């Protein structure tokens, strides 16, 4: 971190002179001290091709660091390498990244992210090495147990503590921009176009297969249904497609018409399908379509998914009855799989390792579950650790894994038979080729770094049960609780994701009709293109994936909260939103800003220009260097005659 001049060289030179001068003791006192040198910080961020926004934040911070006398080095790394460096190896100074929640989230998401119980774990758990035992830890624990206004107060205090201590600096919540075309699929919501719910809610457009979709009336796709005239003829085709579903794959034309084609600049989904791999998952949207969760939360609505129903048992337990469905390999999904999953996520070695090797993701969620027990084939009982309902619901949102596949992966990870690291199991490092899930999509094929294809799982309960029962069934609805928009879905037979070189190329692919939508982030170079493409449209929504600057608080001087708050005030969030996001983002001070009901008024970014916590030092767009230096001096830092900030020679 600090640039070390060779002390040996200095000593060799000074030594001779000093010996002859006969003042060895004094020389030792001087030369024996570590010399101060300029502080250097390395800022890690993905390159512009992979994430057009993050690198702009990194550049902005680097520029302002240099201005106040700190040497900044920008290190561009691909997504996987960056995550490995930051989340697994904790070998970083500063990183710029996005939070891993795609949608606005419950405050308990901060539990895994900042609780000190996770400092020694790798993955999305407290990558900062941050520990505030009496403040943040205390609030995190109490917001789990309290309800109503008491929880609200705990959450408000939590945000103030995080704001004061700045283990990470929230920069902005980006609008999840997506370029879409609607000639083949419609009902792209302006909510979460590419969430699990958004993708399942898509409908075939009339023009695409000459098919009207069954549920279009319910969903009221107000725009784009002008051609209702050929409704009868449309329905015929649609029914045909569903009835001979197994044959649809053979029919090239029909298969093509029913293929949803997405483009992304993020190659990870073509390489790895492990739902718990921290390096490879962005939001986990596609792995959530492969692996069902007990409940699905769509736009704040809790939808019973793999769990058909649940009933409270005792003080802190629920008894969950599962839907009847199969894994992609034909084995039935049972309560034993659910029991296994919750145990496995706590310790992926299933008790075979010296100490537990927990999953690198979902830790905060599963830490709320004390035990999971299968009662019978289709019933499982979860006992919670005295948490409130929202935290319990979060705990139900983990991918349920097939026991018969993953219990083979509890051994230590090896390379060519050699154990490399005793802290890692096969389950954590596997690419999970040919993933066996139970979700509405199943894996077909992939060309690493190029493309991946999934197909509709005709055996999934939303498809199967929707067809069996039909619309006129009078028996009790086997899909009780599942909204109409998800029944019989997905509307596509095949989902293909192609990797593009940049966001501009991705938008171009949508404009040219080679793709239906973009998945990855769009930057200021690509957003204006969408308007110029006749058939492309911009949809957006609300994101939980806030951009933030994360600090490694294990390393001095980033270990000092005073220093971190000065860094926070070097970030001109308002200007960044305009330049790095083309205005498509909201600057924020609190990590919970996407859910304003949780944010106390003193932390709200009141549409104004200034950060309520650590306002930018200077006018928008221009840093006040002297004031920034004064802040650093007040915090105890020193500068040399050239204005360089000195790091102690440790």
């Amino acid at each position, binding site marked *: 971190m600090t640039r070390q001049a060779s002390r040996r060289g200095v000593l060799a030179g000074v030594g001779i002179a000093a010996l002859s001068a006969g003042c060895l003791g004094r020389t030792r006192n001087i030369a024996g001290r570590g010399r101060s040198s300029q502080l250097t910080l390395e800022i890690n961020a993905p*390159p512009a*091709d992979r994430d057009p926004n993050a*690198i702009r934040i990194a*550049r902005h911070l680097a520029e302002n660091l240099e201005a106040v006398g700190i040497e900044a080095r920008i290190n561009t790394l*691909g997504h996987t390498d960056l995550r490995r460096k930051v989340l697994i190896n904790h070998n970083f100074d500063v990183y710029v990244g996005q939070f891993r929640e795609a949608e606005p989230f419950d405050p308990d998401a901060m539990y895994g992210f900042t609780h000190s119980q996770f400092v020694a774990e790798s993955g999305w758990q407290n990558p900062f090495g941050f520990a505030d035992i009496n403040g943040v830890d205390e609030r995190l624990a109490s917001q789990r147990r309290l309800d109503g206004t008491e929880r609200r107060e705990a959450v408000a205090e939590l945000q103030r503590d995080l704001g004061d201590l700045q283990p990470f600096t929230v920069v902005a919540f980006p609008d999840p921009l997506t370029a879409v075309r609607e000639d083949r699929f419609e009902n792209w919501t302006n909510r979460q176009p590419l969430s699990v719910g958004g993708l399942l809610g898509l409908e075939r457009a009339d023009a695409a297969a000459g098919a009207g979709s069954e549920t279009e009336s319910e969903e009221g796709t107000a725009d784009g249904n002008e051609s209702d005239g050929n409704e009868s003829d449309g329905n015929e085709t649609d029914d045909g497609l569903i009835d001979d579903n197994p044959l649809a794959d053979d029919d090239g034309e029909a298969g093509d018409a029913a293929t949803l084609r997405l483009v992304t600049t993020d190659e990870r989904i073509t390489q790895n399908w492990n739902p718990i791999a921290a390096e490879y998952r962005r939001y986990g949207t596609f792995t959530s379509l492969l692996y069902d969760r007990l409940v699905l939360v769509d736009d704040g609505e809790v939808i019973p998914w793999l769990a058909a129903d649940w009933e409270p048992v005792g003080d802190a337990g629920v008894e969950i009855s599962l839907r009847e469905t199969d894994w992609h390999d034909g084995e039935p999904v049972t309560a034993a799989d659910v029991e296994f999953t919750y145990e496995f996520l706590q310790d992926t070695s299933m008790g075979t390792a010296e100490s537990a090797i927990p999953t690198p993701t979902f830790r905060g969620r599963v830490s709320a579950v004390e035990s999971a027990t299968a009662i019978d084939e289709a019933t499982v009982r979860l006992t919670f650790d005295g948490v409130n309902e929202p935290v319990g619901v979060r705990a139900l949102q983990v991918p349920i894994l097939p026991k018969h596949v993953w219990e083979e992966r509890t051994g230590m990870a090896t390379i060519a038979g050699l154990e490399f690291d005793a802290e890692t199991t096969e389950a954590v490092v596997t690419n999970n080729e040919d993933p066996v899930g139970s979700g509405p999509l199943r894996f077909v094929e992939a060309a690493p770094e190029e493309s991946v294809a999934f197909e509709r799982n005709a055996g999934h309960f939303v498809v199967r049960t929707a067809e069996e029962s039909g619309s006129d069934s009078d028996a009790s609805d086997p899909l009780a609780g599942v909204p109409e928009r998800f029944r019989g879905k997905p509307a596509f037979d095949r989902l293909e994701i192609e990797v593009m070189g940049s966001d*501009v*190329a991705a938008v*171009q692919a949508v404009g040219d009709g080679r793709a239906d939508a973009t998945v990855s982030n769009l930057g200021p*170079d690509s957003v204006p293109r969408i308007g110029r493409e006749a058939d492309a449209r911009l949809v957006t929504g609300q994101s939980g994936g806030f951009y933030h600057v994360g600090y490694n608080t294990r390393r001095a001087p980033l270990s000092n909260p005073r220093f971190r708050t000065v860094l926070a005030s070097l970030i001109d969030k308002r200007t960044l939103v305009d330049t790095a996001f083309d205005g498509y983002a909201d600057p924020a001070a609190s990590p919970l800003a996407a859910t304003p009901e949780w944010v106390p008024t003193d932390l709200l970014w009141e549409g104004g220009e200034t950060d309520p916590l650590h306002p930018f030092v200077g006018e928008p767009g221009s840093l006040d260097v002297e004031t920034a230096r004064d802040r650093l001096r007040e915090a105890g830092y020193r500068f040399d005659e050239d204005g360089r900030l000195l790091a102690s020679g440790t």
Partner: protein
Amino acid sequence: MSPLLSVVASLALWVGSALLVASVTIVGPRRLYALWDDLRDRLWEIRKSLAALVVVLIASAIGRGSLQTVSELFGLQLTWAIYALEGNFVAWVQATFGSPELTVYFASVYVYGYVFLLSFPFLAYLALPRTTTVKRLVVAYALNYAIGLALYTVVFAYGPRNVMPDLVTSLLFTHNPEFMALTGEINEPTNVFPSLHTSLSVTVGTFAVLTRREYPLWTPVAAWLATSVVIATMYLGIHWLTDVIAGTGLALGAVYLSYRVVDEDETDGTDEPGVDDAGGGADGAVDEVDAGSEAVGE
């Protein structure tokens, strides 16, 4: 048509036409007829150099992915060092000279001009009665690729467009995103140091100067095109000045080595490999050419 196919098709069309025109005007009909009559013999004569190039290209195609992984895991992450060295030079180039006309010019030079620049000398030198020059050219190409690939693996760095998108526009891919389909097939975005576009263009330019007596018309054309490609790599925001300087060094080194490897004294028409035994040794590819030709030559 997929963007890759359409780019390749238009590339084949334009470069093909340019080659035709250039062959007639620069090489001349007489030499072209002679080449046609003697094509098989000449190709047979240069088979070892060609084989070396093909080996390097195949190794590059197959090994690139694994070498990229090695580079990611163990390579020197030097993006910051390159930036510290030259700062905003590329941004300055764009800010000072950027104009829509120049962007169109440099984008086409970078893709079409470059392919033409590399393919024409092969044809032209093959049409020379003696095969020494074409052998040297092919060996120099192989050396460029082999050393370039090794450096790509050792140095893990991203280009200016990826590091400072606020100052440097990715002009090529912003205006012609379809080109990305092509370059993405050939190159990784982390392969910036050294610039192979620069090194191969400078290689051709150097050969054009060295062979100015044979093809006086080609020398200014090659010099112009090579300079344009070199500037294009920076103007388009793809490479750093550092990459360009390293590429130029690589080119001069490769030309020098190719002269050491392929002996001047060779007489035409014989099967003598004409490889200087003492030459090279600094690089694996050179050794390969040496060893291979010795084995066959004896």
